[in-house]
């Protein structure tokens, strides 16, 4: 058994890279004219998502699963470009690239859509990598990576046709979709540059708006690098009744699977009437640091992984 001192010393380089990455992210958004904000970690009404389980904190409060709803309430109140770096919490998630507590970066642009976020991703990733080179270059499981190479772009339909041999419709079978996604599609995405996977089936829209003129798909995309999901962004749904219907559906699913009746995020729904066209994205900082330091798992870039916490 290695001592805590040895374990932490071995992570020094990765923790130094982590610190630089966080400063570079802040610098990037400052340059772009974004305001850094902080929103509550303790929340009464987490965003209802079927497969994200909140951790109960204290009485009727939960640890935030993402700052998304608060960010959009700020946008609705007239804040135009905002970003946040914070901890987020999700129950039952523990793996090589999953921790129940993780560092999330979110940014939102009023007036923008998911394509403007994709441009942000390209600029942010290249900005950070250029600043870190040549001492440290992106690397993952034996593969050197290169964010300066052209970024591939797939619609979900095209990626499934190419890698899984079938084409998902607007409401594909969830098990088949999820299993082929992790076994056949994800491992092929993002070599050597990151890859954008966009236009998700309508049934997987989450909080994204449907594509105007092509309502089988949602304006949602995920950023992949080296087979690993790094970010999820969308053109935000601003229609209160549709958002409310999606929340109700997710809340019933959660009642059935978790046995818990979560409250409807009423203040958020109420703010939607003032929310104009906008786009927002959640970006996994720990996974980004993993790639930038050539680490094999999240445990290597977090000083105290869950079992040491």
């Amino acid at each position, binding site marked *: 058994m290695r001592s805590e001192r040895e374990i932490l010393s071995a992570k020094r380089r990765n923790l130094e890279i982590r610190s630089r990455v966080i400063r570079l992210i802040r610098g990037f958004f400052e340059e772009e004219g974004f305001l850094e904000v902080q929103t509550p970690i303790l929340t009464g009404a987490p965003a209802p998502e079927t497969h994200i389980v909140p951790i109960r904190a204290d009485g009727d409060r939960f640890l935030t699963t993402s700052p998304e709803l608060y960010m959009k309430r700020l946008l609705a109140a007239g804040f135009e470009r905002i970003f946040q770096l914070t901890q987020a919490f999700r129950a039952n*998630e*523990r793996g090589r690239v999953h921790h129940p507590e993780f560092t999330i970066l979110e940014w939102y642009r009023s007036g923008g859509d998911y394509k403007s976020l994709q441009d942000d991703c390209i600029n942010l990733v290249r900005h950070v990598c250029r600043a870190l080179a040549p001492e440290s270059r992106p690397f993952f499981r034996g593969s050197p990576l290169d964010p300066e190479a052209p970024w591939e772009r797939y619609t979900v339909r095209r990626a499934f046709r190419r890698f899984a041999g079938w084409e998902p419709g607007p409401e594909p079978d969830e098990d088949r979709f*999820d299993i082929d*996604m992790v*076994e056949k599609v994800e491992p092929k995405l993002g070599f050597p540059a990151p890859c954008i996977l966009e236009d998700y089936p309508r049934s997987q829209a989450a909080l994204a708006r449907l594509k105007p003129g092509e309502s089988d798909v949602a304006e949602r995309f*995920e950023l992949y690098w080296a087979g690993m999901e790094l970010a999820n962004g969308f053109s935000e749904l601003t229609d209160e009744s549709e958002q409310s219907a999606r929340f109700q559906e997710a809340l019933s699913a959660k009642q059935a699977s978790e046995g818990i009746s979560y409250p409807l995020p009423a203040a958020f729904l109420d703010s939607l009437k003032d929310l104009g066209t906008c786009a927002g994205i959640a970006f996994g900082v720990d996974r980004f640091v993993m790639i930038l330091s050539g680490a094999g798992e999240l445990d290597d870039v977090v000083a105290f992984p869950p079992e040491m916490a």
Partner: protein
Amino acid sequence: MGSVLTAGELRKGTKLEIDGEPYLIVDFEFSKPGKGQALYRCRLKNMITGIQFDRTYRSGDKFNSADLEEQQMQFLYSDGETYHLMNTSSYEQIEMPAAGVGDATNFLTENLNVDVLLFQGRPIGITLPNFVELKIVKSDPGIKGDTASGATKPATLETGYVIQVPLFVEEGEVVRIDTRTGAYVERVKG
């Protein structure tokens, strides 16, 4: 019967029963695609045949842990196809097909104490002690003057298995062998 496990409890090293056979999870990865469900990706190894395959499970999936037990037994004798062993505490004798003994047969001599793995009471594998001492029954003399360090020559053990030994080891001597690697460790002074 083993206990019931949910997919969320699976780990590398977990032993499961699938279609009536015992499986070991040799590789494990937690996955969650985008906004999708939690998935548990496993590489499974059949503990009887050694065959491996990949399988992805979902949160709701349930399993029986494999009903496995290890007992210390003494190897009595083999008639080629069947190995006869005796439980060292109950003195109960069991028979085991040669296929289940596998490569352990290379270092197995009568009266050796071994650990026998039983699945639902049926012997499926043998674990040898980490080190065994075996006699060299045949080995050509080392060439005189060849003192290059690390030089080896083949030597036949009393089990019939051939290992590599240093040149100074002679026929009739007893050597210690690491059964996990199959490598010569040292000469045992008789």
